[in-house]
Every structure is written in structure tokens, then in C-alpha cells.
């Protein structure tokens, strides 16, 4: 292109043809990559879920995904049914139900705090809590995964469902540091109240939605 070409325009069909050719090459590349990586991605996601669930439900060996709806519970395959809540049922080596894990989320100090909690069927309480993702201030908000006193809240957090099976008997609530009196309360970390409250709210919202639907059908999970 040594001389300036001013009036020459490319015919439309050539443009369409070139774009079509480029799009085809790109399409083939993307489909190829998708096919090649689909299996490892699914495997990675499964391992990640398992690891998170095993952390909140010690002793578990396998995990199955379920959906709880107004009418009952069913294994989750494909899309989530209308109004369904996802949860994980964890079994130990012998195939005995170890507990239920589910995710809760609430707005923290700088972004949504997503937590996974483990529910024990016998004591009807939460026996473990892990953080799935958060962007809380390092050194302050992120104490929710290191503060031993705070984690003690989740060794037996009461989440019994009321007798009408409509909601939790007592809403899970984060209270000011040092004022926890009831087993359904969470003692906040001093100086990280906002993040502590987010954890409480996330668990409460999720448990209020899930447990009333799940508890009447819990026997179906036992093999």
C-alpha cells in the first residue's frame, strides 16, 4: 500500500465473506476447546465442592447434590426446579448419612460473603462453617476463618425447625461480642461486627428457606 487509496471501497460480499471465514475459524477453535476442557472442568468443580463439604462435615466421604422444593426432595440433575433450594447430602464410608451442607450468602463489609454450613440431622444444629468466598478486609473481616472463638459458635448452633414446619424455631442471630446467651446466637468478633453479622444473616436466610422444606423428608436421604 504505497499509494494512498481514497475512493476504493471493498465490496460488501467480500466483507461478509472475510468475516464469515474468521468467524468459522474462531467457532471451530472455541468448540474444540470447550469439548476438550469440559470433563476436567466438571471434575474440578466436583472436587472443589467435595473439599468444602468435607471441611464442614468431618468424616464424610461422598457427596450428592439434592434440591428441596415445596413438595419434597429430589436428586439434582440438570436444571434447578422452580422454587427449589440446593443442598448437599454427605455420606461416610459405610454409606450412612453424615449430614447436610448448604450455602448461604449475605452482604459483608466490602462484598458478598458466601459461606457453606454443615447441618447435623440428630442434634438439628449446625456443626461446621466454612467460607466459600469473600473480599473482607485482611486482618479484620477475614478473622471469620481464623478466629477460634468465633468458629466455636458453629460447633452446635441451634437451628431447630418449629412444630408447624414453617420456619426455624429461633432465627439465627449474630449478637454483640460477649453477649451470647442462647445456642441459636452467634457471638460476633470484636472489631469485625459487620462481617460476623453477614455470616449470621447468610446462614439464617438459607436455613429458613431450606430446613422447613427438608426436615419432613429427611428420612428419604437415609439409604
Amino acid at each position, binding site marked *: 500500500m504505497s499509494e494512498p487509496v481514497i475512493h476504493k471501497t471493498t465490496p460488501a460480499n*467480500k466483507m461478509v465473506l*472475510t*468475516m464469515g471465514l*474468521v468467524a468459522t475459524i474462531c467457532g471451530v*477453535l472455541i468448540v474444540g476447546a470447550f469439548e476438550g*476442557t469440559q470433563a476436567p*472442568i466438571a471434575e*474440578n468443580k466436583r472436587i472443589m465442592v467435595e473439599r468444602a463439604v468435607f471441611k464442614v462435615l468431618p468424616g464424610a466421604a461422598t457427596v450428592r447434590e439434592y434440591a428441596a422444593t415445596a413438595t419434597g426432595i429430589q436428586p439434582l440433575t440438570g436444571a434447578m426446579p422452580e422454587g427449589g433450594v440446593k443442598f448437599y447430602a454427605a455420606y461416610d464410608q459405610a454409606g450412612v448419612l453424615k449430614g447436610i451442607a448448604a450455602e448461604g450468602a449475605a452482604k459483608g463489609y466490602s462484598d458478598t460473603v458466601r459461606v457453606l454450613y454443615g447441618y447435623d440431622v440428630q442434634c438439628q444444629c449446625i456443626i461446621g462453617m466454612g467460607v466459600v468466598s469473600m473480599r473482607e478486609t*485482611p486482618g479484620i473481616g477475614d478473622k471469620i476463618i481464623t478466629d477460634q472463638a468465633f468458629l466455636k459458635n458453629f460447633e452446635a448452633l441451634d437451628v431447630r425447625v418449629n412444630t408447624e414446619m414453617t420456619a426455624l424455631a429461633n432465627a439465627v442471630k449474630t449478637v454483640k461480642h460477649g453477649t451470647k446467651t442462647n445456642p441459636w446466637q452467634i457471638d460476633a468478633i470484636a472489631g469485625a461486627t459487620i462481617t460476623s453479622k453477614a455470616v449470621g444473616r447468610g446462614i439464617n436466610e438459607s436455613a429458613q428457606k431450606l430446613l422447613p422444606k427438608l426436615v419432613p423428608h429427611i428420612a428419604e436421604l437415609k439409604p
Partner: protein
Amino acid sequence: MSLPNPADEGITFDTFMEGVWRQNPVFVMVLGMCPVMAVTVSAINGISMGIATTFVLTCSCFLVSLLRKLVPKEVRIATYIVIIATFVTLVDYLIQAGSLALYEALGAFIQLIVVNCIILGRAEAHASRNPPLKAVVNALGMGLGFTIGLFALGGTREILGAGKLFGISLFGEHFQPWVVMVLPPGGFFVLGGWLLLFALFRGKAAEGGHTHGA
């Protein structure tokens, strides 16, 4: 950019080194600052982002250069974007298949490689005027320069913000982390510091009679 770019000039050492030193994307051109600020909280994040960008940059430049005589100038930007977006999608899948933890750490910034101005800039300014091999060599150099920049920021922020490098503790367990360094303001402080250092180096090198490139 209207740099004199004679297409018949062969591949020289400077074709590669241009991006590393004379036109370093981070320290000299200050391009693509969005990922530079956002993902460089640790050395490994910086390097991963750098490699992902290098991959997209090199592949895109290769394809753009290959098709350079075919693509009409009216639709060239649209074509480049389609090509770049394709390789970004590939990288997205590859990182997910490799490590989900890394994928979560880099977050939306993998997809945002599409709009990284370095890539479109190189496709337009270099790859569309040069033969494939030369375009690839130049893109690799640019990618390396970008990766070095991200590593420099990520490393500094990880050392100060967590007392670690590549996750290995450097100062023992009593180290006091500088929380600000892993927060957004820390990115600006560290980038400012590196720009200052790089400008000093370049100033010294120029005084010493070294001339880089043409």
C-alpha cells in the same frame, strides 16, 4: 501510532526486546492498567495473568498477521475483536480446567483481557503490517514485558502485604502484614514506586550512552 514500520525489515533482537524494555506495556506505555491494579495482590496471580495475556496476545497476533492481506480495512477492528475474544474464551476454559482456585482469584479479569488495549494495540500497530513470524516474536516480547510488570507489582505487594513470595513465608510467622498493600490503594502506591524506579533506570541507561533500538 504512526511509527515508521518498514515491513521488509527482518526479525532483529529488538523485535523481541521492544516490548520488554523500550515500550514495556506496564512501565513505559502504562497500558492495560485495569488488570495490573486488580489482580496483582500476589506474585502467582500476576504471573498467571501475564501468561494468560501473553497467550491471547501471541495467538491473536499470529492469526491477525496471517489474515492481514485478506481482511478489508473497513471491518478490521471487528475482525480483530472476534479473534481476540476467541482466544480469551480458550484461555478462560483452560484456566478453569487447570485450577479453579486460580480462576476464582483472577475473577472477571480473564474475560476482560478482551478489552486490554495492549492486545488490540499490537494487532493494529504491528501484527497487521508484519509477517506472522515477526508478529509472534514481537507479541512474545510484549507479553514477557507485561508479565514482568505484573510480577514486579504482584511480588512487591505479596512481600509487603503478606510477608510471602509465591506463598513461601519470608519473615517468619510474626511478620506484620501491610494490609494496605493488598487493597486497591496499595496497587497505586506500588505502581507509582515501580514507574519511578523504571524511569530512573532508563534515565541512567540513556546517560550512560546506551541506546536501545533504533
